[in-house]
């Protein structure tokens, strides 16, 4: 009698993908895993509340002349992105803290890196997860607001006068998201505890802001704003939106600090993401 189903080991005769695309597998798996979490979905929906408020503001300004003080300007979009800073912070901790730390806790790196994928692919896949979620709470709602303005106003007048908003929103969002993504991934690679990583990230944000606040109180000058991570970002984003920078620190200095931090994070990742941990 032949068996109903052969449960023995069989050789595989199908095709295999060429190496180089495994990062997409990591990214999809990570995105699906996060979307299955109700609390995270709730957080993402909550992060869109400012968008709804702004959409209502644009609608009223477009349809009721007596509410002209609500008419959007370039600064409106800058302020919207600034409002989203809080959600960027929370989503970064919620979705990012465990990205590498959990893999380190479960010794998963040696599983990943024994497959045909490079370390850059692993990091790229993990970065893509956080990057996607952060763009969903920054770039996407800001762009939709811009489109809503055109729809509600029924003309391209505002858009033509502020065409720079498309690249400005894109560049500002990318800057914010890339900084948060790489900083969090680097911190996540340093520990096996996602909770500790979350606390560390929050600590860095608040500690640098507190140092700057203390220096501001002592010196009375904003020229030391480069000490604060969030102040550097605000300074550069102001310039991107063609607004007057809010601090005395030259914006290239703030940009340099941001670039340095991203470079440092990549260097940390390069050292920490390995198939074997060599303790000397």
């Amino acid at each position: 009698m032949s068996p109903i189903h052969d449960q023995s080991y069989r050789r595989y005769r199908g095709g295999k993908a060429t190496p180089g695309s495994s990062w997409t597998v990591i990214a999809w798996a990570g995105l699906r895993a996060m979307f299955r979490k109700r609390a995270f979905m709730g957080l993402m929906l909550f992060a869109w509340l400012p968008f709804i408020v702004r959409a209502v503001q644009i609608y009223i300004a477009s349809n009721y002349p007596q509410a002209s003080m609500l008419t959007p300007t370039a600064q409106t979009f800058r302020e919207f992105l600034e409002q989203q800073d809080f959600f960027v912070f929370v989503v970064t901790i919620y979705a990012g803290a465990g990205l590498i730390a959990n893999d380190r806790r479960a010794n998963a790196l040696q599983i990943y890196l024994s497959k045909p994928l490079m370390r850059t692919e692993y990091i790229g896949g993990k970065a893509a997860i956080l990057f996607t979620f952060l763009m969903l709470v920054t770039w996407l709602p800001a762009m939709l607001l811009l489109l809503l303005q055109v729809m509600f106003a029924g003309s391209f007048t505002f858009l033509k006068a502020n065409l720079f908003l498309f690249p400005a929103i894109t560049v500002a969002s990318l800057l914010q998201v890339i900084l948060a993504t790489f900083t969090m991934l680097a911190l996540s690679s340093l520990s096996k505890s996602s909770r500790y990583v979350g606390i560390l990230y929050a600590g860095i944000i608040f500690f640098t802001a507190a140092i700057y606040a203390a220096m501001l109180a002592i010196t009375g000058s904003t020229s030391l704003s480069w000490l604060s991570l969030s102040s550097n970002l605000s300074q550069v984003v102001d310039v991107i939106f063609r607004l007057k920078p809010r601090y005395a620190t030259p914006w290239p200095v703030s940009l340099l600090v941001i670039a340095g931090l991203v470079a440092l994070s990549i260097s940390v990742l390069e050292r920490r993401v390995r198939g074997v941990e060599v303790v000397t």
Partner: protein
Amino acid sequence: MLTTPVESAPTSATSPDAAVVSLDDVTVIYGKNPALKEVSARFARGAVGLLGPNGAGKSTMLKALLGFVKPEKGRMTVLGLDVAQRPMEIRARLGYMPETDAHIPGMNAVSFVAYCGQLAGLPAVDAMQRAHEVLYYVGLGEARYRNVETYSTGMKQRIKLAQALVHDPDLLFLDEPTNGMDPKGRDEMLELIRDLGHNKNVNLILSSHLLPDVEFTCDHVVVMDKGQIAAQGPIDELKGPAGRVFELRVKGDLIAFIEELRAAGMECHSTDEDVMRVFVPSGLASGVGAAGGRDQQAIFALASRHKVQVRHLRPSVPTLEDVFAKAVGQE
């Protein structure tokens, strides 16, 4: 996603006599501590045991072959491909079962194994189908929808084997696969490994410090000690030199008696039990009685001369333990 047919191994690695893995003069140093010292070895096709005590450098060798650690010097090839030049191609055809507990957090078994299959390049549908198949094969069919984090140690060993097998590798690296398993589970795991190596045409390297595991599953062995190769070759050849092995237990001045045995040209080493194994090279005891009894009589004569009581003397067969003890110079 681009897919290509499964490639066959390069010609150099498909011929029956070719080594699937070779190391030439490989040195790996952790900080200031050399883990591998100018190691040269050949791993034949089929099942090969990588045997040695803890700290001998077995895991380091596997990790170097995977590209996890970079050697200070030397050249390594796997399936005919240079490890330094073509690591991705090698890993696509390799399955690795790590020594330590390892899994992707937050996944059930079938998702985890399918995910590993996708990482190795299998299309999603094929990966899922293979995941179910290999989970049945390793004996986790009924538990495949459970979260891996709830698994027992033995089940975790099985799922590590499943993730190493899912993409149908040409070569398996198994690092201490029976660690932490109960006797029944250990036997089942060894049966699986033996089946893979002997019936499924999967080349495998079994790294273990357990002699019976290697002896049961492998045809060839590479013995390591202190970061160097102590012996290598077919197990039958290594344990089959001309001569006879005896199990011996004595009462009296043991140390002096062992020295006397060695002076007489015999080799002896202790075992886990209170019994030592004595190897008597052929021709050593010629001229004393019949062929079968000459060696025993020689041992009795030496015992009598040193006033040592022989409590137990039984002919045995050479085992891998003898090879190992001889290779690493264990007393």
